[in-house]
């Protein structure tokens, strides 16, 4: 079998929700990623959803997804033997991924401090940068999203500000965790020197807010009636040119961008253009007016349409409309099925499907590795690190 691009890298995964997606990205790219667990099991094995089965234990789908391609070893870090084994794991690692408070992290910091492993890459994904006012604040995803600006952007005037579905803020910090590990590894390959790296979840989220800082810094140039901070505005994009509209059946994201003339041609065919052919709308100072008028005309028109038909007709015209799909329809998406994208996956005794490759390498393909039960790789790992019991 062809190896993944990271097949020569050994990683110790001591992350929690803040960095675990990064460990998954690296593991699915072929790295040898070992995730030590306490003897009672990784607490994240208790995250829902679970496989529903009368005759099985509680198998966590959440854990199975985020801990794909890992190898499991259970350690008692209160015991001298367990600590020695942990020490050997650290000695054998190229990269250690940590989140403060997760299993083994404090111990790993002490051991690494004493060992002075020049080549080790040590990544610390923390909620807030240490040494600052909020360094010790606790921030689950919803709190992290609130403080870093994500939640203020989402929701509508008649709803509370909303977090993203699931824990998407931590998937941002997870992706940055993977980037920091691979960048430090690249530098180590060039210089022979590893290093410590800090990744701040707070800063990660704040760096991925699209228009938020743009409006704050360039508010005058943006000429928006709401000024430098946009209020929650439902599905209406900051540009006013993308919005989710209710069709007669279903719901669809509609936009006249990037080619307003193409949209106008379609509107003329449908006789919904009203006065939009008036040359006044071509004047740069009337662009906002043109967008608003176009979107209002489209809203009335979309309400008479079947959303799915409209989506395919728009895409036929190379217009980036998007059909709003519930999860169960994503599961049947013809593009994903044609690309053979969902992959077989086994969680305990249960055979299911999981999501596929976020990137396709021509020579060293991504591969979803097995999901392991607690200490499943204990013997193999101990042999590999030279532990003699």
């Amino acid at each position, binding site marked *: 079998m062809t190896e993944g691009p990271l097949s*020569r890298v050994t990683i110790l995964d001591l992350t929690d929700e803040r960095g675990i997606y990064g460990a998954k990205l690296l593991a699915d790219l072929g790295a040898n990623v070992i995730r030590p667990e306490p003897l009672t099991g990784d607490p994240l094995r208790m995250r829902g959803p679970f496989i529903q089965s009368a005759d099985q234990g509680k198998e966590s789908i959440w854990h199975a997804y985020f801990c794909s391609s890992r190898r499991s070893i259970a350690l008692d870090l209160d015991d001298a033997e367990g600590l020695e084994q942990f020490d050997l794991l650290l000695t054998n690692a190229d990269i250690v991924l940590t989140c403060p408070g997760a299993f083994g992290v404090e111990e790993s910091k002490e051991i690494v401090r004493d060992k002075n492993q020049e080549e080790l890459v040590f990544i610390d994904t923390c909620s807030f940068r240490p040494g600052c006012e909020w360094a010790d604040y606790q921030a689950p995803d919803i709190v992290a999203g609130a403080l870093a600006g994500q939640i203020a952007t989402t929701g509508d005037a008649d709803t509370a500000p909303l977090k993203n579905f699931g824990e998407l803020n931590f998937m941002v910090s997870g992706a940055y965790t993977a980037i920091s590990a*691979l960048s430090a590894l690249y530098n180590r390959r060039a210089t022979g020197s590893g290093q410590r790296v800090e990744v701040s979840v707070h800063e990660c989220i704040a760096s991925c807010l699209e228009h938020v800082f743009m409006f704050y810094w360039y508010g005058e140039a943006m000429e928006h009636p709401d000024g430098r901070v946009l209020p929650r505005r439902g599905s209406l994009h900051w540009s006013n040119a993308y919005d989710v509209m209710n069709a007669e059946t279903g719901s669809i994201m509609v936009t006249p961008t990037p080619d307003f003339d193409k949209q106008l041609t379609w509107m003329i065919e449908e006789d919904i253009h009203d006065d939009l052919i008036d040359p006044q709308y071509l004047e740069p100072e009337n662009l906002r007016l043109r967008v608003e008028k176009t979107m209002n005309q489209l809203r009335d028109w979309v309400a008479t349409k079947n959303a799915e038909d409209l989506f395919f007709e728009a895409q036929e015209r190379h217009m980036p409309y998007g059909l709003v799909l519930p999860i169960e329809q994503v599961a049947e998406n013809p593009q994903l099925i044609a690309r053979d994208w969902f992959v077989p996956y086994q969680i305990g005794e249960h055979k299911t499907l999981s999501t596929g490759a976020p990137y396709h390498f021509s020579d060293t393909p991504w591969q979803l590795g097995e999901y392991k039960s607690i200490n499943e790789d204990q013997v193999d790992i101990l042999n590999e690190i030279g532990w003699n019991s």
Partner: protein
Amino acid sequence: MARPLEGLKILDFTHVLAGPFATRILGDMGADVVKINSLDRAIGANDPIHPYYIMWNRNKRALALDMSNESARKTCKELCEKADIVIDNFSVGVLDRWGVGYDTISQVNSKVIYVQMSGMGDGGPWSKFVTYAPTIHALCGLTHTTSVKNRQDIGIGFSYNDHQAGLHGAVAILAGLESLQHSGKGQRIDISQFEVGVNFVAPSLVDHFSNNTITEPVANDLPYDEVAPHGVYPCSSDGEGIKGENWIAIACMTEDQWRSLKNLLGSPEWAEQDSFSTLSLRYKNRRELDSHIQNWTKAQEAYPLMDTCQNAGVPAGVVQSGADLANKDPQLRSREFLFAFDELHGEVGQTFGDKLPIKFEKTPCESYIRSRSLGEDNESVLKDWLNLSPKEIDENKSEGWLN
């Protein structure tokens, strides 16, 4: 001190957000990113003086070529021969038409890592579909699920998937470089921004495949775990905030945190009722619980309330706007996370940036060069990458294809 990716050459054909964000991160870490622009494509968000372009294209050099000209395409191919990375997020096939597709370039540069970030990936019945982040959010289930049940779909209030596609692009490139270290061979990487997006609803999809579960919008609840309180609550309106509103997120993930919150609430009678005695019961009765908490938060100022909660061990965070992040956030201020570029932009004047959220101990990434005007670095790029003399560059300019 050198940054971690110094010496890496990236030829960047990307536009809008997803691709430019990938190369911005690599540029922040020291890669020499050369952004290819042209006069005819410098419109809207791709205009180098548009704030959107300025946001995503710092730490890159700008080379402007008229790709309709054969000499420009020849130069472009020569640049591809020198590049470690070639990246684009055009629809599939555009670079092939310019004569710099993977099949051509890999023949003359076997070590190249060639990344194509299209909306739907190369292949499949939707491969020619046109997408932006709101399109992807709709199609991958994020618009439907990031919402409130029995209400019109809302979705994420910004282009989350564009950022994530950029981050995944950077991961893929760095993984490709690690592979190259050992194989000595480059490769092609096909990224479907749609597939990146579908990953973010993976637990729900596996839940559906395994249990036939129908995932519904959950607003501020966690979708899979019984946790309450877990919400965003109004605070006192003091005239500041967005439209005068101030909000705070509070989440009690553990029994200890709930006990601490109860103490802060003054252990009111309602909190001692059986209906809130266990996590499961609190979750079952969470709307009533939210109503009690809201009655407590709405008379209080958000920042002091957050401090009180956090000091008592209750996770809480003010819902901060962009202005709050810039003016009130002590974490970002301490790190000088938001900054003004030292050098003024020739056409725009003062421009601003936010730092890379990664802090390397030995290879710090604290060098930030403002985004460039169209063709601002033509001379330096052609000299550094192709070793052209000033005379040769002048000749190219006079031919008119070097914008």
